């Protein structure tokens, strides 16, 4: 029996597939996140002195930050696929990704600000990382605002996809300009990867929690795309027979 993945590009086939997979993702999300946080809270030794217990925040902050960034890339990817192949489902995936991504960016922003407060003493600092989190939030908000401002869903999908592409193209430029506002004083282009000096236990906790957030994102995005399918395909026969 020949099997073609392309059959799942049709909403009618993707809908039940997604439905079957969602519980699996939830299971993975809950187990991984709980384990990751457990690991972060109990297994990592009090590396920093007792006064610095706040570093537990980092597990949530890093996971949410990564998700914020990765989901934006995913959103752009699905938009691009939709623009090139003109498939409805890809645009639905892009739209579904946007909300979860925005929420992740929001969590990253707030947790980052709290992290800043406890480690540097200020709720906000215009350092490159926090500034980029803020800009990512703006990009998500722009996407969602544009999408909801356009009534025609075809036009909305395509316009938002183009916007997200332009955003992605400009993000490295923004990053460079925020990192290096005065080119005369930029000693090194590459900031040292902040993961070099991290103890392996903490790193493990971060990774597991991040994976848990990934699973969570897949679960909610698939749930959302199923709702979008129901909404948009409401006039089709297969939906009315559900």
């Amino acid at each position, binding site marked *: 029996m020949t099997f073609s993945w392309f059959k799942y590009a049709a909403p009618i086939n993707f809908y039940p597939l997604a439905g079957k997979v969602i519980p699996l993702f939830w299971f993975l999300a809950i187990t991984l996140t709980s384990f990751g*946080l457990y690991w972060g*809270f109990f297994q990592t030794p009090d590396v920093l002195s*007792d*006064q*610095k*217990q*706040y570093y*537990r*925040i980092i597990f*949530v*902050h890093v996971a*949410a930050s990564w998700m914020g960034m990765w989901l934006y890339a995913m959103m752009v990817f699905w938009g691009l696929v939709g623009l090139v192949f003109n498939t409805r489902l890809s645009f639905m995936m892009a739209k579904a990704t946007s*909300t*979860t991504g925005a*929420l992740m960016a*929001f*969590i990253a922003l*707030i*947790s980052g600000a*709290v992290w800043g*407060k*406890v480690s540097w003493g200020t709720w906000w600092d215009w350092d490159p990382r926090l500034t980029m989190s803020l800009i990512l939030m703006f990009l998500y908000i722009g996407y969602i605002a544009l999408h909801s401002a356009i009534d025609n869903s075809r036009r909305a999908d395509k316009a938002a996809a183009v916007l997200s592409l332009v955003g992605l193209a400009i993000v490295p430029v923004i990053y460079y300009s925020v990192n290096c506002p005065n080119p005369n004083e930029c000693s090194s282009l590459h900031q040292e990867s902040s993961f070099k000096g991290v103890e392996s236990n903490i790193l493990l906790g971060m990774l597991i929690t991040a994976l848990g957030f990934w699973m*969570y994102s897949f*679960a*909610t995005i698939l*749930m*959302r795309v*199923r*709702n979008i399918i*129901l*909404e948009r395909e*409401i006039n089709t026969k297969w*939906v*009315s027979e*559900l």
Partner: protein
Amino acid sequence: MSEFFNMGGYGYHVWGVILLALGIMLIEPINLKLQRKTLLQRIQRNKRIEKNRRK
């Protein structure tokens, strides 16, 4: 135990962030489930209207 909650004086910060994150991550799926229920109800209602129209 209380030391666990206190987190060396940073209790509010740590637990605040955790609550925010987990809170959002709980409300989102609940919201989605509600949305799905409404959509399914709408579909059922449309079906009924169609059937009545046919009669």
